[in-house]
């Protein structure tokens, strides 16, 4: 199947010589949720801005649904909805007017029923006649999302949509994102809340200093880089790990009352059962077991450290 978004050898050197993107390649499938992760200044917004036509690429090419973003910009851009990172809204216009404006701007015929649906989904319906400047920051963020959805895009960019957003709106937003995905909309989001990406994304991309260093299915990523840790609380403290339990890679912790085993997520159950059998044979009694699976956040931090 043709990818909905294809980025090929894309580079960006800003005026003044700063390289913000280095030879980025990426293909997205229609209907997936792609989380783009990376520290501040990594180039996330730059990548999104180039795809949306806000920044000129220095080299490389981008296609949206098979349309080149430069040669065939009308067809490419008509597919795209963008919610920018910063809150940039009009002040004196009403919510209804600004959202309708966006639809017209993207060349779509007036459709009040669609705008009404979008506003209702974002709990903006009762604010539709309010001037934007009278809304709170979270409400303005909803308005920006409504504008991006006003023309029924097939690709939606959410650049840090949850920065400064309360729990309720965040939950609303993710519900909407899931629903959009079911309708076949491809969603590209950036976030610094990794548990969000872990929960929402189908695939994860990690960008650092302009290099898209990793693109991976989330589950595969968790399996490949994920670590599990088994902690065994002992009845009586040990002063050292008994020789019989050597070779399992165990560590002693918490005043000798805990035995800790670290192993890769993909390793299956063998390490755990081996250790438990070893404990039984050595006659060491324990009263509790605890396992911890590393989160995307742990993986991310680990990745950043490896490539520092």
């Amino acid at each position, binding site marked *: 199947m043709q990818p909905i978004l294809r980025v090929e050898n894309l580079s960006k050197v800003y005026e003044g010589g700063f390289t913000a993107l280095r030879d980025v390649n990426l293909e997205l499938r229609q209907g997936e949720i792609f989380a783009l992760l990376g520290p501040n200044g990594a180039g996330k917004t730059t990548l999104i801005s180039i795809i*949306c036509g*806000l920044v000129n690429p220095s080299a490389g090419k981008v296609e949206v649904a098979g349309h080149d973003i430069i040669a065939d910009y*009308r067809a490419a851009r008509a597919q795209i909805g*963008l919610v920018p990172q910063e809150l*940039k809204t*009009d002040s004196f216009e009403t919510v209804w007017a600004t959202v309708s404006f966006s*639809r017209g701007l993207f060349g779509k015929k007036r459709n009040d029923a669609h705008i009404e649906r979008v506003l209702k989904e974002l709990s903006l319906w009762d604010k539709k006649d309010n001037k934007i400047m009278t809304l709170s920051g979270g409400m303005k963020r909803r308005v920006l999302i409504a504008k991006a959805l006003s023309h029924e895009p097939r690709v939606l960019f959410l650049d840090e949509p949850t920065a400064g957003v309360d729990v309720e709106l965040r939950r609303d937003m993710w519900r909407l994102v899931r629903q959009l995905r079911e309708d076949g909309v491809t969603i590209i989001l950036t976030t610094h809340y990794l548990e969000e990406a872990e929960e929402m994304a189908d695939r994860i991309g990690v960008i650092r200093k302009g290099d898209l260093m990793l693109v991976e299915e989330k589950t595969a990523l968790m399996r490949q880089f994920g670590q599990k840790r088994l902690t065994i609380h002992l009845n009586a403290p040990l002063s050292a790990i008994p020789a019989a339990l050597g070779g399992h890679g165990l560590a002693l912790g918490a005043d000798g009352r805990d035995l800790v085993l670290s192993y890769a997520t993909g390793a299956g159950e063998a390490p755990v059962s081996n250790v438990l059998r070893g404990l039984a044979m050595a006659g060491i009694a324990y009263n509790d077991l605890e396992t911890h699976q590393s989160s995307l956040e742990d993986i991310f931090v680990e990745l950043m450290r490896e490539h520092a």
Partner: protein
Amino acid sequence: MNLHAIKAIYLFEMARTWRTLLQSVVSPVISTALYFIVFGSAIGGHMAPIDGVEYGAFIVPGLIMLTLLTQSISNASFGIYFPRFIGTIYEVLSAPISYVEIVIGYVGAAATKSMMLGLIILATSTFFVNVRVDHPVWMLGFLVLTAVTFSLFGFIIGIWADNFEKLQMIPLLVVTPLTFLGGSFYSIDMLPPFWRSVTLFNPVVYLVSGFRWSFFGVSDVHIAVSLGMTLVFLAACLVAVWWIFKTGYRLKS
């Protein structure tokens, strides 16, 4: 053509006009009325008719031009500067819309507003003086041409300016003096020969002269020259706008 987009931008900009209708209409009307009282009645009473036209009526085309130029520039420059300033321009730049369409939307709205004001001032002037329009089609033609040309010029200023001072600078330092020295309130024939020649480098002379000809059939320079010079300026503005969008100047990094 993305007609929906042109319409969206045009109506959005016109909504700004309607919202501020009172100040956009009242202030030029009041200042024009003041001009009529001061120049038309108080001073004009002591002036001989120029080319057979009463002085009060003689200044009407110049006054309309003055408003047309300043309003076109300020409307259009503000119209594009403001979304750049607050950042909402991102949406227009990311929309499936060509540069020509963007310009038609913004410049069309700015020109509409200044033409409305020009006609309102013309109407106001009839309360003070007897004006006649000998060539109404030419009059409207010059009105449209000037409004469009200077709205384009304002659009360029609105893109070039990166702060509010610059936005005000060109209209204040260049356009207003040129208009006052461009024969709005006198015939350039009244100047000594040397200054008359200097004045011919002032583009506003040609606008005012041509516009006045459409009213009274008298002009400082030939109507064809007026039209030609206006078209040259229009062409220059079009080239500048084309270059701006081609290079993304001040719009895209």
